[in-house]
Every structure is written in C-alpha cells, then in structure tokens.
C-alpha cells in the first residue's frame, strides 16, 4: 500500500475507532451471554418447551427449529437473526458515516483536493469498514469458540468459523450497498435507508418466503439465504453462497467507485 493510501486507512480507522470498540464490545458481550446461558438451558427443559408451542415452519423461520441441540441453540439465539442483523447495521452505519456523512459535512473537501485520487479515498474508506467488520467478526468468533470449548458444547469449530465467515460477508455486502448509494451521489440518509432496507427485506424473504410454496423461490434472491440458507454452523462453508456474496459485493463496490469518480463532491 502506497503511503497516501495507508495514511487514509490509518485516519479512517482512527475516525471510527470509538464506534468500532463500542460495536465490538456489544457484540462480544451478546455472544458471550448467549453462549454463557447454554449450560443452565441445557439442564432445564426450557428450550423444548420454548419451541414446542410453535409450528415447525415458524420455528424454522426464526431459526429455532433445533433449539434444544447445542448448535441449534447457537443458531437460533445468535447466528440466525441477531448477529447478522446487528453486524449488518454496523456495516451500514459505519459506511454511511465514513463516506456520505463525512462528505456532506465537508470533511472530505480538503482530502479530495490533495494529490490523491478520489476513488482511492472512497475505496480505502470502504476498506476501513471491512477491516472493522473483520475485526469484530473475529472477536465474536473467538469468544463463541472459546465458550464452546469451555462448556464442552457439541458444536464443531469449523461450523462456527464457517458461519462467522458468511455472516461477516453478508455484512460486507450491505456495506457495499450503502457505499454504492453514496457513490451514485444520493448521500448518507438514502444510503442508510436503502442498505438497511435491503438487510431487512432480505431477512424477511429468507425467513418467511419458505413458509409458502408459491413464495419459496423468492427466498433464493435473499443474500441471507446465500449466507445462512445451508446452515453453515452444521454443514460448513457454503462455497456457492460465499462466491455469490463476494462477487456481488465486488460488483456494487466497483459500480459505486466508478460513479463517485464521475460526479461532483457534495458541498458542505
């Protein structure tokens, strides 16, 4: 990495340092408290009772269909909804703030007038977000895996790694959506709205479409389905889904970068 790029990267990380620490701490805490509750849950039959009143379809929609097994418990309480949703929101808000937000506040004005290509500034800032997501994902992974080992849960280490990867990539994709919206000049607000909308609609398609035969094919257009449809915690990395997430992320980031180079920088 050439010197201006590393400088932009360093500054970008420095800017989001506090929010990054807060998100990481919150998600690690969430992961630890979810896993930490397992031993007492396992002993009582609370989990059986919890899911027994719900139809199997509904249970599948919320990811709690196998909640009484260790991996089912982890999936239902962490990886099916909560973690991807929160990590996705972190991705979206961080990207919108670091690109569109800073641009609209006039904080990029001087940076973009320096001898640095505009696409470099935006791409490196996207990289800062990706770095933050990776860091948070790794921390969550380590805390889950550590707890799994110490509580001797019947969950494969490879499965935890696989689901961490797909959830992380799902978040990167949504960061890419926010980035592209900013790239095309719609600003921070629309970037937040569109990317959060894609996140929520994607979840609904993934969770609800399978309940109806006529809607079921729609689930396949949901990025959530690509990331979590094959249950990576049990079945390992879904390489097709991973490829789809990576390629689509790369494509929308490239489009956003192409657009940002050809538009006017917003005035504070």
């Amino acid at each position, binding site marked *: 990495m050439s010197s201006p790029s590393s*400088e932009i990267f360093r*500054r970008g990380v420095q800017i989001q340092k506090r929010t990054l620490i807060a998100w990481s701490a919150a998600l690690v805490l969430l992961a630890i408290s979810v896993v930490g509750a397992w031993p007492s849950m396992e002993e009582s039959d609370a989990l059986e009772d919890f899911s027994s009143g719900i139809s199997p379809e509904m249970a599948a929609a919320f990811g709690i269909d196998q909640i009484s097994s260790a991996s089912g418990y982890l999936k239902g309480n962490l990886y099916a909804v909560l973690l991807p949703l929160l990590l996705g929101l972190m991705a979206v808000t961080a990207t919108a703030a670091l690109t569109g937000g800073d641009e609209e506040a006039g904080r990029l004005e*001087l940076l973009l*007038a320096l*001898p*640095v290509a505009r696409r470099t500034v935006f791409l490196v800032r996207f990289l800062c977000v990706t770095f933050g997501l990776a860091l948070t994902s790794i921390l969550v992974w380590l805390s889950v895996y550590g707890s799994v080992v110490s509580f001797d849960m019947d969950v494969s280490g490879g499965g935890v790694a696989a689901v961490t990867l797909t959830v992380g990539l799902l978040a990167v994709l949504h960061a890419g959506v926010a980035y592209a919206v900013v790239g095309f000049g719609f600003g921070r607000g629309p970037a937040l709205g569109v990317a959060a909308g894609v996140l929520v609609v994607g979840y609904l398609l993934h969770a609800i479409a399978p309940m109806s035969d006529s809607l079921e094919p729609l689930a396949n257009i949901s990025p959530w389905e690509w990331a979590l449809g094959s249950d990576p915690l049990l079945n390992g990395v879904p390489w097709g889904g991973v490829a789809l997430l990576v390629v689509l992320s790369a494509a929308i980031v490239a489009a956003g970068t192409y657009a940002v180079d050809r538009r*006017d920088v917003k005035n504070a």
Partner: protein
Amino acid sequence: MTPLIECTDVTKKFGDFTALSRLNLTVPQGVVYGYLGPNGAGKSTTIRMLMGLSRPTSGQVRVLGQDPTDPEVRRRIGYLPGELRLDERLTIGQTLASWGRLRGLTDTAYRDELVQRFGIDPSRRVRGLSTGNRRKVGLVGAFMAKPELLILDEPTNGLDPLMQQVFLATVEEARDNGQSVLLSSHILSEVERVADLVAVLQGGRLAASGPTQELRRRASQRFHITFAEGEDVPLAALAGLEGASDVERRSPEGQVVSLAWAGSPDALLKFLAGRRITTLTAPEPDLEEAFLEYYQRDVPGSRDAEAEEPSAAAGPVR
C-alpha cells in the same frame, strides 16, 4: 507560457439554478489574482471546479494546462476551502503531519516557519479552536509545500487584523518566490493591497476584470466640497450634472457636500468655478466603491437600476 488557470465558457448549473454562466478567466503565472464578489456570486463554485471537486456543466477548466480532476495536477496546488472542516480529534501538529504525508512532503522547515509566523501552537487540539485559528491551520497547510499555485477561498475570514497582515505578507513572499495566488474575497480592501489583477463576479457572471489599478481608475470618484459661508448650496444643480450621483449634504444646514463622480471631473470643476468654495477634496478611490457599483446594478431600486429613467440619472438627493 501556459496560463496557470484557464476557464473557457464555463457554465455550472445546479438543477435549474445557474451558479456560473459562461465564465472566461485567465490567471497568468507569477501574479496575485483577486477573485471578488458578494456571497453567492459563484466564487466557491468556480474554485471547487479548479480543484477538481466538481465539473463544469459546459465549458472547459484547465489548471496548469491540465484537467484538475487528475490528482497529479493537485500536487502542484495548495488549497484552502471556503468551508474548512478539520478533524476534531487531532491536534494541529497531527493535522499538518497527516496532510504532509498525503502530499509526500519531506521538507518541513517552511511549515515550521509558517507555524511560528501565524502563532500556532501545534500541540493544541483542533476541537475548541476558533474559526480564525482553524483558518490559520488551513493556511499553513496550503502554503507549506510551496506549491506553484495557491487557491485560497476567503482566506482572511475570521483572521484578526494582525494575522491579516501576516497573511498578506506571506502571499507577497509567495509571489516573489514565483508562485501564483488566486484568492477570493467578498471584502475588497483585504485583496486590494496584494492583488495585481482582479476579477469581479456577480450573480454568476464576470462583471469586470483587469489590473487592480485600472479597475480603481474606472471606479467612481468621491468628492467632498465645502461651499463658502453664505454661498447657497446648489444641491439640485449638482445632482443634475451628468456624471454625478449620490449627492448628499453632510449635515442638514451644513456647507459640505459629498458626491460620487464617474468619468472626467472636467464638468464638475467648470460648474464649481462659478461658486465660492473653501475646500475640495477627493480621497483616493478604493475598490470597495468600484465594487459597490457592480453590486448595485442588480439590486432593485438602486441607483443604477433607476438610471433607466433619464430624470433619475443623478440619483437620490438628500
């Protein structure tokens, strides 16, 4: 020699609003160029295009002979934005160091000298700095790499008079060093001292441009006339003279009359030759006055708007 800045028929529209209309601007090398106009005239719009931050709707912008959206051109330019937003988390020293790294600046001797000259404490945090102090940091950033061209948008905004002098001296030093400076301002007197050339922008159009001296000559001249005791003060007659405007009595029954005069003072002197006067003074015209003339053209009900009617050509008589 290629001009440092060349705008050819540059138009910039924001939706239906035309911020800049067919602007032609040439800034030669080794000059200080004053880019003047009231707020909203299109100065910052021009400057942002010069920095490659936005593109013209039509026309062509060339800086140092190249398209300024090319980052390599910007290496040779120092820029101070009109709206300067610094990173609040850094100290002044960290801010300048970061800009230096982004520019690939290795020789920091001049930077340190500027820091001293502007009286900046590098260890202070940006958060809590006044507008003027932020501006000083921005100025050091613009000047520190000794770029061929400096583009400064409202550089004196918020600077106290002492710092304005330091700034003007730094501009003069840069020019003597062969650098060129484009500085925008809505306050003429700030620019008048250092600018070799000026352009006056109004409502997105170039209202006037040329050597500062010449613009000053074209400016209307103000005369103060004291009529002798007992002499009738011929206010109406003065106001009726071709070339006179803004004729006013200094005090209600006083003998002192002040008026603005455009063109050769010949007719005024001939008129006054028939009266007894005790003093006639004509202060050095400043650009402020020339400037106001351009402004008032577009202001409804102003002197020049009324000039459409022949009888009102002399302007209001008070």
